[in-house]
């Protein structure tokens, strides 16, 4: 099932759903015909869309909002904080092309601080999907919750068979004592590649799909910190405020520490190009990740990375 199919199904079953977009229809092309008045395009007005969503939520609706990740999380930031966060209204934000998924657009479109700023708002929950199956598995619970929610949309395919989603729980893909990669979103597919390479090098390797970033699965982080010699926080996000920071906060809160390698963007935006080239240039292919962790090159072959279709 695709994101659009899921949204269509849920919205047709439940009159409370209102689908909104600030003129970003890539994920919802067929919904205007299906939902009629319950599809609202406010034009290129992220602030007005979020404010109006708060008004709709006051009247008992569950608005699901669509816009590019940077504009949704940053142009409308104060509206999310003030109109959805303070009153804790169920405004559901579907954030399109977050992180590296903005590929060739350039820094204006690079949401690589969105997790940081969204999780800083009380009441706002934050999620990221490893692939479309993960996304479709997590959204019913997220949309049924009473809180505002920010979801990094990822509609790529990995063929991984995910376990059922629960808010506040990570998905443990594998456990290992030498190195464990904690990741979320798009980089899950490269993490799978990295894990295979590390295993062929004889290491005991763990992988965790964090997927619920706020609330976060503290027990999963603490367990990995205790049992794995090295913990890697892999994310297409600045190291500041994202998963690396989340792990640091959890460890400090529990008065413990671990050998943690941050594997994110270190204080700079990434080189714009098509996605496979971005990953290669920035050092985020599975092979590069594995070799950085190992500290040496290997003769492993990097599988081809699918180029996303242009989606504005």
């Amino acid at each position, binding site marked *: 099932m695709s994101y659009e199919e899921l949204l269509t199904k849920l919205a047709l079953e439940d009159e409370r759903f*209102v689908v909104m977009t600030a003129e970003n229809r890539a994920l919802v092309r067929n919904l205007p015909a299906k939902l009629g*008045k*319950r599809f*609202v395009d*406010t*034009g290129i*007005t992220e*602030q*007005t*869309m*979020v*404010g*109006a*969503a*708060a*008004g*709709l*939520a*006051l*009247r*008992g*609706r569950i*608005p699901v909002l669509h816009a590019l990740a940077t504009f949704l999380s940053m142009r409308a930031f*104060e*509206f999310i904080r*003030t*109109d959805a966060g*303070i*009153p804790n209204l169920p405004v559901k934000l579907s954030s399109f092309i977050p992180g590296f998924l903005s590929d060739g657009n350039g820094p204006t479109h690079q949401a690589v601080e969105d997790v940081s700023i969204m999780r800083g708002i009380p009441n706002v929950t934050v999620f990221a999907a490893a692939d479309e199956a993960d996304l479709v598995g997590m959204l019913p619970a997220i949309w049924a919750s009473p809180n505002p929610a920010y979801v990094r949309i990822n509609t790529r395919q990995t063929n991984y068979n995910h376990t059922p989603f629960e808010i506040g729980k990570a998905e443990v893909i594998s456990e290992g004592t030498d190195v464990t990669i904690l990741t979320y979103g798009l980089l899950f597919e490269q993490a799978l590649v990295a894990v295979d390479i590390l295993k062929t090098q004889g290491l005991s390797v763990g992988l965790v799909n964090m997927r619920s970033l706020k609330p976060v699965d503290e027990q999963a982080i603490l367990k990995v910190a205790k049992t794995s010699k090295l913990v890697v926080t892999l994310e297409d996000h600045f190291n500041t405020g994202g998963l690396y920071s989340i792990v640091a906060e959890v460890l400090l809160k529990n008065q413990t520490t671990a050998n943690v390698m941050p594997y994110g963007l270190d204080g700079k935006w990434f080189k714009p190009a098509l996605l496979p080239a971005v990953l290669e240039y920035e050092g985020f292919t599975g092979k590069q990740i594995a070799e950085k962790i190992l500290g040496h090159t290997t003769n492993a072959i990097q599988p081809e990375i699918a180029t996303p279709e242009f989606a504005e």
Partner: protein
Amino acid sequence: MSDLKDIAFKVRQHIIRMSTDGGCFVGASLSATDLIVYLYAEYLNINKDNLEDPNRDYLFLSKGHDVPALYGTFAEIGLMDPERLKNHLSTSDNIYWHPNTKIDGIEFHSGSLGHLPSVALGVALDIKMRGGNNKVICILGDGELNEGSCWEAVLVAGAHKLDNLIFVVDRNQFQANMATEDLIPLEPLHDKFTAFGASVKRINGHDFDALRGAFNAYPFEEGKLNVVIADTVRGKGLPSIEARADRWFCNFNAEEVESLLKELGGEEVTQLTSETLVVR
């Protein structure tokens, strides 16, 4: 008519009493008083018994700093115990410089300008979706119109033909400590809204007959956002502070409050010595 005047007089007394021991935005509260009194006491279908009714009207106060006028009105129409106004700025209650939903009758918190036009728009949109015929009013300050989000909301309301939504501008000619026309000129304001697709009426915001004339013409035009520009006087009712840039946020001493209450009743103009908060 005499009833509304009487209510407005009492609301102004409440505002003056709240302008001490920490103070309040007295100028903006007094300019909006007649407007708010008219809307709650006569025009809108909002009362203490129907707040949970989805078919009642709504009023969003986007220029939240004039909330003393709203609380004063609530006290006079039975939405709030007048005794609670004595709790202004006390942690024992939730009556502070901007509105919040812990007070029954407040639709939404405000204080950050330019937000409630879109929130009100969302409520109006939902009413349209459900085929309701209740009205949604959003009161904006004129200085607030500097915020681009206000104009976004006007565009979007027009696009969605929200003729159940009324934006009311309290046109008191000042923003904080400056005249609007000296900082970011707004005139011709009527033409600006018209050019953005709204149907506009401009009236004297202290004249109840004029307010009736405008609001009774609702909906002004089918499929268009209604805009009422209410020309008002900052500090209305107190000649010693009327239309003055330096009487925005005031924290008067006890003697001044007593004197201002007499001034409101038509007695001698007060000699004010209290400093006012000047931010520029």
